[in-house]
Structure formats: C-alpha cells, structure tokens
C-alpha cells in the first residue's frame, strides 16, 4: 500500500523516452575512459616535440634522482613549548563553550580545539536556546582559517597600524562634531547587551552617535509588527515542540526564518509517538526545506499566499473574505483551518510574508491562543531597520555624515541600492569598515579595520530575552586585528579591555550574584529575574499599527492584487545564507538539500512555466546542463542567470537565492553565481520580474542523476499516519522475500555467509529516522570537518567525483497522494467531479512530496566491497565497522563498483598541497582546520565513511583509562552529534539499555536494500506522513 510509489530523482526520469536515464542505468562507468581521445589523435602525437628517447631519458633521470634523493631520510624536528600552558596537553582536545553571532547566524556552540587550534564546532548540549549548529555554523570554523582575510589595518589598500587609525578616527569624530555633521555606526545585529551599553556610552562621550542596525536579509516586517504590538523591536519566539498543528504562510521555519534554530523543536513533534504526530500545512512559492517537510504543501504565488492567509483567518473565524484562489488551494486552506481549530492551543500559525499587515494578523491570531507562541521572551537576533538604512543613505548623499563606521556588514554587496550607498560614501569625510575581508565595502572606505573572527573574540549575546550567552576566544588572534568594541573603548580613551567590560557589565547587571567563571564555562546563562538594560534606541520610527483589529488586517490582505506577470521570490540557500561565508569551500561544495546543486545559484522555475522556453538536460556523463536567462527587476538586469527547473515551484513565480556573486574578498574559484541582492529593492524579497532566454548553456554542478541506484527501488519507504496506525507493520514495512528451495522466505533468514558472533563487546549501529530528518545538511558539513574530506571543485563535482562521505539523497514522490486523501476524507461523495479534474490537472512533479535520506557507508556485516578487494584493504571489525586501510589500498576501485549503495569515494587527484585544487588544503592556514586524528588521504586511494572510528575508539580508550563502563549516549559520530533534529542516533546495540537497541526493535526499522542480504549496521525508520486525518 505504501511503498508502491514511483520515486524519481530528476525531472529527466519522468520522461519515458529519455535515453539518458536508460543509458545511465546500464552504464557501470559514468565516464568512458578516454583512451581513443588520447591515442587516436595522431596529429598531436606526431607533432609532440618529446621523442620516445627523450621520454625514456626523462624517466631514467627522474627515477635515478628520486632514488638518490630517497637514500637519506628527512630529519624531522620536534619543538616543545618553553612554558606549556596548564590546560593544553598535546594530543588531548579541549572544548570551550562559545557563541556565534555574525549578524546572520546566532547559536550557542561548543568549540573543539586541539593544541590551541579550533577544529570543530559542536552543538552546545547545555544551551536551551539556539543550541543547534546548522551547516553554516559548523562550517564557520573554516572561515577563520581563510587565507583571504585582511591581516591588519589598512588605509587605501596599504598597511597601516592601529595607532594611526585610532588617532585619525578620534580626530575625525571630533572634526565631524565640530562641523555639525553626524557620526554614524552602521552595524549588524549584535544582540549584545554589552555592545549596546558600550555604544550608548560612546555616544555620550562624543556627544551623539547615530546607530543604524542593518540586516542583509531583513526581517523588517516581522520586527515592525512586533514593535507596534508589544513596543519592543524583536521577534516572537515559537516552540514547535508544543505544536500539534503548524500552519505556515511562506515561513521557512526550517531555514533562516526569524534567525532560524527551530528545527530541533519541530522535529520532535514530527516523529510519531503513540500514534500521533504534528500536522504541517505550508503555503509557499519556492520549494523550501520547510515545504519539503510539510505534510500538506500548497504552491502559491506570494500574493496568493497573502490571500490564503486572509481566507484562513476567515475560515477560522467564520467570516468570508474575497480574493480568488484556485479551488485546490481553497480546499487546502479550509482543511488547514479545520485542523487549526481542532488543535486549539496546540496549533500555531506563522508567516514569512514580508508585510506588516500579514505579520500583525499572525501575531493577533497567536496572541493568547497558542501555547507555541512566546511574545514574553522574544528573539533578538534580528533588529535591522529598513527605513533607517534608507534615510542613512539619503543623509550620506546630502553630505550630512561626517564619520561612518561599519561593523559586520557589507552594504556595497548586500544593498540593492549599492550605487546610492557608494555615492553617499564619497561624501562621507572618514569611513572605517570593521571587516574580516577586503570586500566590496571595505575597499571603498578610508580604513579597513581588520576584525577578528568570532572564534578569536570576546562577546555576549542575548539570543532570546533573558537567555544570555558568552562568546570567548578559542585561539590567539591569527592576525593583527582589533574588534569593534575594543576599538570603541580605545576611542573613548578608556584602557579597559572589552573582556573586562563584559565581565563587569555581567557582574553588575546580568549575573545577579551567580559566578562569572561558571557562566563563562557554561557559555550560557538564563536570568531568572528580568534584567533591565539601558539600551540606546536604534534609529528608525516605529510603525503605527496598534488599534487595528485582526479582521481589518485580514480584509486588507484579502484585497491583495495578484499580478499577472511573474513574481520573483528571493530566498537564502541553506548552504550560503547571506553570503558572508562565500569563501568557504565546504559551503560552496555543499549540495543544496532541495536542488542538489552546488557551486551556484540559479533561477528556479516551475515545470509548466519552463515548458517550451527553458530546458534542463543531462549530458551523457551524468551532469546537468541548462539554459540561461536575462532577468530584469525594476530596470535592473542580471544577464546569464542559469535556469533550473524546480518541481514544486509555484506557477507564475521564480526563485533566486542570495549569497552568491561575490566579487571581492573571495578566491577566484569561489566567485560563483549572481548577486541577487541587486533585486532586493526596499528589502522586499518579492518583486515582479521579467525574463527572457539568453544564449548559451550553463553547466550545473548538480549531483541529481549521479550515483543512481541502478534502477533498484525500495530504498525509501513511506506511509501515511492512518496506515501506520491502523495496519500491521507487514503492510507498510514489508520484509523483502526471497525464494529458498522454491519457498518464499524473508530475505533476512537467508545468507551466503556464516555469521560472526558479535554479542560480546561493542556493536555499533546508526539509526536514521526519515521522519525527523529535515535535510538541513549540518551532518554533511560536520562529516567534512571531522574526517578531513577534501573539496574537489565544480568541474570535478560534475564528473561525479564529489568526495562527500555522507550524502543526503532527496527523492520526489510523483503521486500527490495527499490531495486524494484529503478529498476522500472530507468530501466523500460530494466532489467526485472535481477530484477527477484535479487528477487531470496534476502532473507528476508539479507539486511533489519530498523525502530526504542521508546515505553513508552502511557498514554491512556481509559487505560486498570487502570480498572483492584484492589487497584486503577493506575489512570488517568486530564492532561492526567496515574498516578502510588507506595505506594498503592500491586503487583498483573494485569495491566502489561492488558497493550497492555507491558510498565509496575515490581520490582521483591529490587534493592537498595541489595548486589545481586551490581550496583550504592548499595553504598552511586552511590546513590548520584538519583533524589530527584522521589521515589526509592521497591520490589513488579509495575512501569512505568510517563510522567515525576515531571517535568510537576515543570513547572506548577513555573509558578503559578511567576504568569505567561506557554510558549510553557517549558513543557518537560526527553526523549524529551534529544532528539537532534527533534523526540520527548512534550507539552500541549490545547495550540493552541503550536508545539504539530500542530503535532497532521499532516496527518502523528497515535496512536499505534488505533483499540483497548485506546486513547493514545502518538502519532507517519508515517515513510517516500525516496526510490523512488520523
């Protein structure tokens, strides 16, 4: 019943006549070995100036030289500390609690350091708010070791020193004040109590500073609505762990909506417990991560989403609102309203529409009704003010600004009106950019004030009201840097360091008698008594909204006109965010969870809209090519934007992601994509757009059709909640049967091999719950960081040579089962006709259901790879792990060919210290991030997931040394530790008390390709969708 769906991985597969899909299914090698190409070219062979004799001479000479050079071993040196710091022991990792607050990502983290070098960012287990590190946060450690960082203060491109800069700025501020001009700070959202206090003190000391807060990707509407209602410029918090019903109108709650960090709560309710799970309706335009996880997803134009929200309010309150929606959408809204009403306080409605009216309506609907909603302790991670930024540019152009200091922002890149800003900047007397890079902005300012990375800085953050966290340096600053706050203290003439400033501020106002050292150790502090902090009001007038009733708001919304043309919806990609970390190769190579495309941004378009205009096609090495378009918004045109056909994209809309198209401060390889901020007029992510086909072809680094499973299905199992509750597990999770002596028996009972007794000692298993997995990809980056996985670059990714040990397969389900289900339940007899109409309307792929499936080495007990290795480089351990001895591997690649899961990765090149792969492993700075416990593999060696054997071994060795029994939860892999949604659980199944042993007994448990009898040590849990009324 459940698993008869046809799953497909690419639009191409839906085309029954596609020869490429067939070819790829049949081809063992995606690439033909280009022997003919090389030897067949007689002309170039003849014209070669190297004769055979010369060649032999070279070979002979180099062999002799190499032999001679090898006669003497190199002398290696070891230099110990002169005075060894007490807390450092060579070979033992230290952990420090800290906080990232780069203006876009805010999270409490645990930083792993080795010999004084931060090498890994973990989730912070003690923190209660934003404790989950997403892919960008995990990757942020590499951004510190960025060779493009500015290494000291600069003036006009030349190095200078801090004394000069400080003196100049002090004089500049004095002069500006004397001339009656303004001193302006344009900063990111710091959400820092100490910084706020410091800025207001500084302002007092110099007689007034204008502080403009600016978020690259704005939450202005949500902030305005909240401010109007509650008087505080913040955003409501939502605890989705309490939500039975989630109705979302364009809110990417699993992405970066309101600063992100909601996935762990959301995923808790997504796992069916006692036959219940949450129900999630998503009304959106782009196919977002949230939409992919929703039970019911309705693709609408942004303007229609507004109408849908009004109508939803109408159905809830029993008032009817106008505005036209398609019948299908209308039904979905009705169903949503019904579910919403039924759930009472356990329901919540959220919106990501950048419109104050919509935001206010949602606040009105949740206030006092929803348990999920929390306006008492709101989120402070965004506070940018669009109006203030606009008026600042006007002031700058008018020559009213004497001194401009920017910190943590890059307006020349992130502002739509970058030209206006540049024009204004020319009229500013003195400008200083606190920046880690010589980027688009800091190259235009008088001074570049080199600022440290957050792992080198002190700081404090109030992510949510009353929830404080501390940022502490985990390494001595790599370069001659000064953080913004320290500079302010210097300019004030104070000789207090910012660290002491925070400490005294915390002791006086926040800690309330608790110890500073304990707070610093924990990294987080929750204040039991409300703290009133003296904060300077940032610039910008609050929006007057109070007094308007919800009904009026809804009425206003319902009158939204639906434009006839295309609407462009700008969004932030999971990997790249607002583009601060564009020079991070891990993030560039990170495949987008939805499109599975890396190294690019692109215009996403629906299948229907693309028909006849734009095409995507697979070339015969399995890579994806596509057409280009010239896109125009408000008279601004970006040429040659690649077009990607995206199933689930709302008709009449196109999507384009921020964060790409960086020009300065990034390596040549990282200059990818186009800058979507140019379209971000008035901080509105919805714009009307026109586009036309451009000449040429774009080559995507998309891993869609790669690693096909050779046409073998039954990989991803899913079912509906009703089936799950009512039927026996055999129905929705059938065991594959094989024929033994002409009898159908379960495949698990048949084996070609004898089994080992693994009952003594540890036996590791990894459990992956497809319900809890949101596809966020934090595990992919964590695996990269932990295991020194190389980055291969765009062209190699196109050749299926990406090295990710852990991939997250994304499957689209062709049938839109939920529509029929909903209809059948709600209109059992009434709307038979419309049902058939819907059937006709729906093409497979227009609005598909999506499932994510992380796949890594399955560590089969009967591993096909092990039996074919001619040199026994891969073998099995008693603890269940499939070992890979790199130094033994000779690179035959038999194992990869024999692996049914296609999880083995071959080092086609030397990826470290090789100029052809100029990523982090090619410079000394970038190599500092390498994990010293894991070997860096060389060319010609096969590699794969080791189930983080270095981590399991470490746990065992520590326990042996301490002479204690290992507790459940101590065993972790990088991916399971990084998974904040709880989808991945790792442990020892020989420990009967452990969670993993319990999960293995679950009815939902199944193995990948069970019928081939590989007996994997990784198992999955059937995905249950709450598409029907349970």
């Amino acid at each position, binding site marked *: 019943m459940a698993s008869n769906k046809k799953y497909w991985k690419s639009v191409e597969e839906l085309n029954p006549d596609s020869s490429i899909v067939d070819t790829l299914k049949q081809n063992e090698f995606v690439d033909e070995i280009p022997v003919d190409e090389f030897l067949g070219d007689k002309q170039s062979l003849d014209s070669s100036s190297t004769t055979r004799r010369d060649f032999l001479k070279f070979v002979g000479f180099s062999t002799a030289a190499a032999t001679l050079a090898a006669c003497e071993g190199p002398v290696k040196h070891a230099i110990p*500390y*002169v005075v060894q710091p007490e807390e450092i022991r*060579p070979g033992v990792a230290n952990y420090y609690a800290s906080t990232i607050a780069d203006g876009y990502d805010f999270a409490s983290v645990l930083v792993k350091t080795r010999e004084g070098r931060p090498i890994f960012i973990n989730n912070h287990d003690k923190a209660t708010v934003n404790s989950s590190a997403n892919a960008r946060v995990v990757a942020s450690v590499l951004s510190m070791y960025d060779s493009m960082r500015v290494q000291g203060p600069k003036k006009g491109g030349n190095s200078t020193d801090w004394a000069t800069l400080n003196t100049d700025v002090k004089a500049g501020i004095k002069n500006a004040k004397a001339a009656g001009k303004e001193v302006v700070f344009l900063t990111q959202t710091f959400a820092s109590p100490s910084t706020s206090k410091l800025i207001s003190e500084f302002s007092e000391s110099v007689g007034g500073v204008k502080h403009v807060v600016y978020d690259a990707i704005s939450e202005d509407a949500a902030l305005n609505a909240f401010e109007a209602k509650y008087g505080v410029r913040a955003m409501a918090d939502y605890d989705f762990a309490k939500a039975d019903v989630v109705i979302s109108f364009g809110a990417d709650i699993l992405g970066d909506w309101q600063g992100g960090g909601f996935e762990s709560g959301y995923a808790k309710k997504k796992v069916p417990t006692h036959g219940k799970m949450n129900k999630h309706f998503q009304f959106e335009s782009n196919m977002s991560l949230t939409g992919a996880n929703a039970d019911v997803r309705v693709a609408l134009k942004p303007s229609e989403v507004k109408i849908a929200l009004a109508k939803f309010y109408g159905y809830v309150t029993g008032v009817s609102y106008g505005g036209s929606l398609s019948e299908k959408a209308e039904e979905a809204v009705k169903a949503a309203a019904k579910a919403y009403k039924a759930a009472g306080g356990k329901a919540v409605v959220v919106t990501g529409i950048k419109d104050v009216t919509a935001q206010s309506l949602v606040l009105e609907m949740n206030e006092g009704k929803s348990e999920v909603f929390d306006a008492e302790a709101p989120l402070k991670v965004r506070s940018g003010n669009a109006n203030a930024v606009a008026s600042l540019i006007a002031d700058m152009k008018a020559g009213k600004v004497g001194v401009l200091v920017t910190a943590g922002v890059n307006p020349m890149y992130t502002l739509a009106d970058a030209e206006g800003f540049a024009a204004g900047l020319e009229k500013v007397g003195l400008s200083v950019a606190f920046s880690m890079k010589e980027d688009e902005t800091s190259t235009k300012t008088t001074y570049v004030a080199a600022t440290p990375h957050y792992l080198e800085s002190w700081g404090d953050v109030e992510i949510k009201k009353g929830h404080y966290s501390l940022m502490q340096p985990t390494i001595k600053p790599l370069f001659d840097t000064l953080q913004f706050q320290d500079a302010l203290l210097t300019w004030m003439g104070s000789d207090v360091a910012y660290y002491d400033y925070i400490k005294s501020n915390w002791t006086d106002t926040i800690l309330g008698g608790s110890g500073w050292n304990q707070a610093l150790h924990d990294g987080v502090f929750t204040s039991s008594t409300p703290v009133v902090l003296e904060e300077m009001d940032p610039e910008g007038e609050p929006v007057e909204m109070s007094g308007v009733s919800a009904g009026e708001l809804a009425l206003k919304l319902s009158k939204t006109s639906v434009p006839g043309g295309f609407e462009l919806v700008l969004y932030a990609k999971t990997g790249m965010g607002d583009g601060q970390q564009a020079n991070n190769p891990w993030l560039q190579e990170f495949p987008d969870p939805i499109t599975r495309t890396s190294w690019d941004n692109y215009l996403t378009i629906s299948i229907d809209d693309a028909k006849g205009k734009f095409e995507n096609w697979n070339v015969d090495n399995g890579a994806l090519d596509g057409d280009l378009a010239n896109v125009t918004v408000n008279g601004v045109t970006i040429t040659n934007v690649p077009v990607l056909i995206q199933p689930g994209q709302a008709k009449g809309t196109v999507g384009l992601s921020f964060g790409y198209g960086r020009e300065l401060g990034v390596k040549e390889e990282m200059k990818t994509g186009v800058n979507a901020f140019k379209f971000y007029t008035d901080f509105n992510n919805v714009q009307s757009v026109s586009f036309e086909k451009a000449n040429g072809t774009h080559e995507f680094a998309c891993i869609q059709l790669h690693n096909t499973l050779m046409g073998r299905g039954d990989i991803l199992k899913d079912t509906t909640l009703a089936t799950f509750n009512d039927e026996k597990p055999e129905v929705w999770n059938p065991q594959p049967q094989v024929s033994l002596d002409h009898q159908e028996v379960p495949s698990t009972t048949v084996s070609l091999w004898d089994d080992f007794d693994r009952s003594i000692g540890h036996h590791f298993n990894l459990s992956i719950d497809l319900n809890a997995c949101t596809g966020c990809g934090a595990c992919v980056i964590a695996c990269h960081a932990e295991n020194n996985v190389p980055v291969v670059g765009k062209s190699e990714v196109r050749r299926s040579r990406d090295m990710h040990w852990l991939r997250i397969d994304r499957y689209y389900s062709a049938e839109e089962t939920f529509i029929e289900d909903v209809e059948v339940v709600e209109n059992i007899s009434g709307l038979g006709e419309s049902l058939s109409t819907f059937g006709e309307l729906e093409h497979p792929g227009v609005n598909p259901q999506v499932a994510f499936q992380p796949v890594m080495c399955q560590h089969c007990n009967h591993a096909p790879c092990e039996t074919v290795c001619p040199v026994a480089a891969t073998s099995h*351990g008693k603890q269940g*792990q499939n070992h890979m001895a790199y130094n033994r591997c000779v690179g035959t690649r038999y194992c990869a060919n024999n692996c049914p899961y296609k999880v083995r990765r071959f080092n086609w090149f030397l990826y470290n210290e090789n100029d052809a792969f100029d990523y982090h492993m090619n410079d000394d700075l970038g190599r500092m991030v390498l994990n010293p*416990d894991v*070997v860096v593999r060389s060319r010609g060696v096969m590699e794969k997931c*080791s189930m983080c054997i270095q981590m399991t071994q470490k746990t065992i060795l520590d326990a042996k040394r301490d002479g204690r029994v290992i507790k459940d939860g101590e065993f972790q892999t990088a991916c399971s530790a990084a998974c904040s949604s709880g989808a991945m659980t790792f442990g020892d199944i020989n420990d009967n008390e452990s969670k993993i042993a319990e999960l293995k007994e679950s009815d939902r448990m199944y193995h990948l390709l069970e019928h081939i009898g590989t007996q994997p040590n990784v198992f999955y849990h059937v995905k249950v969708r709450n598409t029907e009324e349970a």
Partner: protein
Amino acid sequence: MIIQFINMKKVKHRNSASSILGLSLALLLAFSTTVFSQETDTAAAATETTADASVGAGDPVNGKKLFNTNCAACHNLDKKMTGPALRGVGDKHDKEWLYSWIHNSSALIASGDADAVKIFEEFNKTPMTAFPQLSEAEIDDIIAYTMAPKPAPPVPPTVSGEGGGEGSSGGIDTNIVLAALALGFALMIAMLYVVNQTLRRIAEANGIELQKESEKRLPLWKAFIQNQFLVIVSVILLLLVSAWFAYGYLMQVGVDQGYKPNQPIHFSHRIHAGDNGIDCKYCHSSARVSKTSGIPSLNVCMNCHKNISEVAETTATPDHSKEFYDEQIQKLYKATGWDAENMKYTGETDPVKWVRIHNLPDFAYFNHSQHVTVAGVECQKCHGPVETFEVMEQFAPLTMGWCINCHRETNVKMEGNEYYEKIHEQLYKKYGRKDFTIAEMGGLECGKCHY
C-alpha cells in the same frame, strides 16, 4: 683471529680425463674479529680534600653530610643559588649570629638586625627555612665544612675524551693484521711461482718433456656451462640469494632502529633516569593521558634546573667532561631565558629544536596512554633501557610486524578495570578461560590503528 679453510667437495667432471687438475678447490674465508675488552673507566674518583679543621672544633666530614641533607637544595659553597654562596661564611658572621639566623631567620630579620635585613633584601625577600632541629654543634660542623679552602680544579682524565670509545687501549689495529696477512700471502704466491719456474728450468735443463696438459683440459668455466643441471641449480640459487638480500634490504627501508641523532642539547637519559632515578612519566607526563608521550616543555626542566646549574664532579665520564655537561645546562638556560645570576627569567626564549627520533607514519594511530596507563606496559619494553642511554636512540624497529607480534603474545590486562568487567565475564562464559591476548580481543583489526 680465526682463519678457516673450507674444503669443498670434489666435483667430478665427466669429460675431464685428467685428474691432475681436478684438485680440490679451496676457499679461503678469513673472518677477522678483534674483541677488545672495553674497560670503561670509572669516573675519576673525586678527590676528597679533607681540609684541616682550622676553624673551631667542628667536624667537616659530618658537616658535609649535614650540608648535603639540609642546605644543598638552596646553597652551594661557591655559587649563588636561591641563597648565597656559603664558603667562608664563618668569617663573614660571628657564630652567635649564625646560630640565630639558622634557627629562625625570620625572627632575626624581624628584630631589625642590619645584616639579616640586607641578606633578606638581596635575595628577593625569600625567607630561609628555619632549622630549629640543628644543634649548635651541628651548625659548627657545617661551618667547619664551609670553611674548607676551595679545592684545586680536578686533574683532567688522562684518557682524552674523544678517542675513548674506539677501544684504543693497546690492541693492534685489525687493518694492520690484515695487511700483514695479505703481504704474507703475496710473498707465498711469489715464492711458489719462483719455485715453479726454477723447477721447470731444471726440468728443461734435464731434458724432461713437460706434458702440455692445458690443451686437453677443458677450462673449468666451460665445463660448468656445459653442465646444464649445474647452471640451472646455481641460477636458482643465485636468484634465491639475491631475492633474500633484496627482501632484506627493502624491509629495512624506513626502519630507523638505532637512529641516534645528535641533539641540540646533549640530554643524557643516563644521568636523569638512571643515576638520579627520575620516573619517566615525571617529565613525559602526557604519556599517562594522551596519545603522545610529550616532549617535556622546558619549564619542566627548570623545575629542577633552577637550582642545578652544574653537574657533580662524579657525573663526568671519560667521554663527557663536567664542563661539557655544564655547558648543556647553560644551553637550557639560554633556551628558557633564565638569568642564573639574578635567578629570574628574562623573557627572551629560544625554543629547542629537538631532532625527532620516533617517527611513526601519520597513517598509524598509536596511543601512549593505552599502553602506559591501561595495559601498564613499562616504557622500557618499547624504548629500551633508556636509563642507560647517554644518547637517546630508537630501540625498537617500530614496524607493523613488531606491533602485531606483541599484540599476539600479550594478554589484555582486564583485572581491576571496570570497563572490562562485563566483557570478561561474557568471554569467560563463552570460552572458559580467563586470559585473552590482544589479538583475540580484536587488536589486529586494521581499523584499530589505521583511520
């Protein structure tokens, strides 16, 4: 010296009719070994200058004993250390003052005694430990010891330090023996030739026709080549032997057993771990908890060497003089930036670039703490009798075979370790025995060391 003649078996040639030349082949193998007993000179006995008891009635011999037990940690006779140099201290202060100072210096300082305050100020206000347990007579003994005149510098050892190791004590060089032998043989051959010639001439003179055997005789090498069996056997033998040597050569590539590089500071494990019995893990403390044993940071050296600025006379060996060792300590001071005069750090450091001896390849994971703390393996098992090493060297081959062998032979130490309790019980139930080697516990799996 042994000279061996090995008579090889006669080989019959089917086609060699004459047996005159079919003489036995003799192969001369000369092994020459010179074994000289290498008498290690025990270090020049320190001259015990027992000075006449010129001052007071103290007993300098007892005084020396007391001095070494109570005072030597902070005082030297001729050098400023934590406290002042003490030679001739009896002349500087009167006895009563000394008694009260030694019994309780703080009280004396507190009383405002000018001398006492001066000394206290001079030595960074470090109060001297009070010794109320010393009787006045004992103090007299110590003073008597300190009043002894400075001994003349010791006579340098007669054997020069440089040539000591080669065993030059009286033996005739092997080369000379060999040369003499070679000369003897050459003479013998020449004489035989002369005799042969003379005999021929005599024969000729006597008109005896010498048989021209050489024409009939097949040359030996030709005979050898014609015997195919022999050729095949010798080729196979040759191949096997060369394969054996090639294998032997290749297997030692990268094996640095016995690697004994010169270090920037001549650090003698013999003196530290041997003579002074310092536990290995006092300096290599990381070995207990970390995968690396840790090269001690220089502040660990300075724990002791703040007060030990020179070695004792008895530490010197024929190879290395006292001055040589003292110079090494000075190198340490330079590296740490220690100003021995003023007893403080200058802050100018110059980290030591030791030459790394044990180089395990990156792809092999080795954890010291597992062997040292968990298994309780003696450091000496892998590193050799380090306490006797003047110069540190690589004792074990550090090859994978060497690791594996030990893992095959050694039992896992499970008693008293709570981690193993349950596992041991299960194993006992299953196999009915109590001891399991590391190999049986999965210690040979690739992934245990390679990841």
